[in-house]
């Protein structure tokens, strides 16, 4: 072997990661980027080319920038994915674009491999002397299909544009997005925030035209060196006011302070609406108290979620259950709002007192009771001994056998007060006389 060849172990995962980061970077040209095999990318540039000064200029730009990054990239532009694939891989001497209508002419001199065929089919064709695509184009289609399968014809049609082939984009395509190319890369937070405000203003016009508001927004920051950062924020109600959008991102950027690495700066910033919802125009009454307040509240909820992470703000979700922890639990506010129409919010009548704090998980305590079925005399919780002065109970809560398999043991709840006046909610799990000895748990705390 040649002494100067450097041998590196193949690492498909790393290759994949590299390709994905390249796909991320290609997002700057078009949102429709699809991975192709282990070494290719499809870019659907429908309607994007004019932004880069025409198709040829765009192709040149892409290849030039990839070369600057140190990649040996080959690219081709055609009206069908199949043709572009073939041209990129099998054309000698550089990158070119195939004008629409000239696919047949362009495809004819290429080898059969340019048709993305299975190896078996290709060998079969070559064994009968068909070595170029041109030979296939002239041959009658029916016998070809009979002998080599319909896939061959499908590939041929796809390359020629007779059947539609869709590439599936790697990332969901935002229904609406605005972006700005920057001649001078920006890096400071103030600049980014100012730019968000400008982009949001443009976005507002479009949203107004379609009568929608944003429910989820994404900010893509394209770094000069190719890395792409995506920042998402959600809103609890359709939103379109630029200052509010900017404010949400401001919280998110504050939270990301350390992890957002501007490097040499960002040269493309895109703000897209990932999820839009109809914007209900509401006329407030003249005083406008109620709606203003509601708006302020939902904005605060959004900002808290943007800064503290999703699920930081919780609301009680009620369920029709007599098991205390199932009766009311805290759920993220958007989840709770979704569950509300189906679940009932009707309060269950409970005559018995309920604690104001419930431990996330009942904590086992060691307790001693005077009589087997009676309240505890004393118990030890978190290494401290509590002597029970007074107790009320038991309140027997059996398991929901229709929900649980196997059903949980029956609980006997006691409300106890210790000598100092602390009031707790204890329960004994299981009954005396059953196989396992009953255990005691502390579940809640009373005021």
């Amino acid at each position, binding site marked *: 072997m040649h002494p100067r060849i450097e041998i590196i172990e193949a690492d498909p995962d790393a290759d994949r990661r590299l390709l994905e980061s390249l796909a991320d970077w290609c997002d700057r040209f078009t949102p429709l980027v699809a991975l192709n095999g282990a070494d290719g990318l499809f870019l659907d540039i429908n309607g994007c080319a004019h932004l880069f000064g025409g198709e040829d200029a765009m192709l040149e730009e892409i290849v030039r920038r990839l070369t600057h990054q140190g990649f040996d990239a080959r690219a081709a532009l055609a009206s069908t994915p199949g043709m572009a694939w073939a041209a990129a891989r099998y054309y000698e001497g550089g990158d070119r674009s195939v004008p629409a209508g000239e696919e047949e002419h362009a495809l004819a001199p290429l080898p059969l491999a340019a048709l993305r065929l299975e190896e078996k089919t290709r060998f079969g064709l070559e064994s009968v002397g068909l070595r170029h695509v041109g030979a296939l184009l002239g041959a009658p289609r029916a016998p070809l299909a009979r002998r080599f399968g319909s896939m061959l014809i499908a590939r041929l049609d796809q390359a020629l544009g007779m059947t539609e082939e869709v590439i599936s984009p790697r990332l969901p395509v935002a229904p609406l997005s605005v972006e700005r190319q920057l001649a001078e890369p920006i890096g400071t937070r103030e600049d980014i925030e100012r730019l968000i405000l400008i982009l949001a203003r443009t976005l507002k016009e479009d949203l107004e035209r379609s009568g929608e508001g944003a429910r989820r927004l994404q900010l893509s920051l394209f770094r000069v060196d190719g890395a792409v950062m995506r920042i998402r924020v959600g809103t609890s109600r359709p939103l379109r006011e630029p200052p509010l959008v900017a404010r949400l991102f401001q919280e998110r950027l504050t939270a990301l302070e350390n992890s957002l690495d501007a490097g040499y700066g960002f040269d493309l910033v895109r703000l897209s609406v990932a999820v839009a919802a109809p914007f209900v125009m509401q006329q407030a009454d*003249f*005083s*406008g*108290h*109620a709606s*203003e*307040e509601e708006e*302020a*509240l939902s904005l*605060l*909820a959004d*900002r*808290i979620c943007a*800064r*503290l992470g999703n699920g*930081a*703000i*919780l*609301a*009680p979700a*009620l369920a029709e259950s007599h098991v*205390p922890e199932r*009766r*009311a*639990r*805290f759920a993220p*506010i958007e989840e709770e709002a979704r569950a509300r129409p189906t679940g009932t*919010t009707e*309060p*269950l009548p*409970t005559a018995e*007192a*309920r*604690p*104001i*704090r*419930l*431990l*996330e998980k009942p904590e086992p305590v060691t307790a001693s009771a005077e009589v087997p079925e009676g309240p505890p005399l004393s118990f030890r*919780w*978190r290494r*401290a001994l509590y002597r029970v*002065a*007074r*107790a*009320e109970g038991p309140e027997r809560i059996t398991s929901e056998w229709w929900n649980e398999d196997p059903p949980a043991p029956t609980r006997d709840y006691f*409300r*106890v*007060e210790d*000598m*100092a*006046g*602390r*009031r*707790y909610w204890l329960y004994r799990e299981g009954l005396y006389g059953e196989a396992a000895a009953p255990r005691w748990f502390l579940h*809640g*705390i*009373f*005021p």
Partner: protein
Amino acid sequence: MARTAMAQETICALRRKIARIEGTMPERLAAPGEGESLVLRRYGRPEGTAGRPSLSAETGSPRLDAALGGGILQAALTEVIGRETRDSGIVSGFSLALAAIAARAGAASTEGARPVLWVATADILAEAGFPYAPGVEQFFGLTPDRLLLVRANRLEDALWAAEEAAGLGCFSATFLELRGNPARLDLTATRRLHHRAREAGQPVFLIRHSSEPEPTAATTRLLVFPASSSLRKTLAEPLPRSIGPPAFAVTLARSRTGKTGTFTLEWNPHDFVFQERWPTGERGSAFKSSREAQDTGGLAAASFDRPDPAPPARGGLAAARKERRAG
């Protein structure tokens, strides 16, 4: 806009006239900072009330109200401290009771019931448990749809969320619950909270578990200890060994009036008022059995006729016993 004082006054007069004709509040028509006679209202509350005395809500205990200078302050930071985390039920219950009092007083002036925001650090929620909506509703009348909880992993996040919420004015109360005496919660941080509360006109409660009192900007500081509850009252006689309404032993450590004191308060979950327990007073009803008297003695039996705070713990118990014997 109006340049001279004369023109400004004319405009103000015209505005008031228009408002009277339309039957709406003139305040909303006014721009901020446009003359002293106008008040800009946000969410129905006057803005920039910094200079005015804050409204207060009566707690139901005359002695505590007197010490607080009329009641619990509506637009201020109130600090509620518990010495141990295991008292979390008592401490958070007392804060909720204060909020219920403030909300009841506030409901008379503004329409509708506003939600409550409970900001807590994740560690205290793990240790003391989450607020339990059915219990909170039972004891303090706060319906589950009005309770919002923010769980913050870091203290800075909790402080930020509480500050933002406090300044918003669309909550009937904001709670900030944390543990210990973190250095970050200093005079500056609490002063910011207090200012927000004052501007928005809504109370902020700072709940600190297993904590020691330290200088903060809170106008009111209350130390809460457990206290034995009285027996459940029935038509015939108190039910033996039963647990009555929640009771709290409260030490007022700082107040606007400068007065301090020790109180044993009993919460009335039906009328949302406190009742002070008179250790020597109502001997006829609740304090009949000797067992009960022993229970009350524990931490802070309040003195009846002295303005000075009774020293907590043993002194109070001895005083109570002495008086019992004398009477």
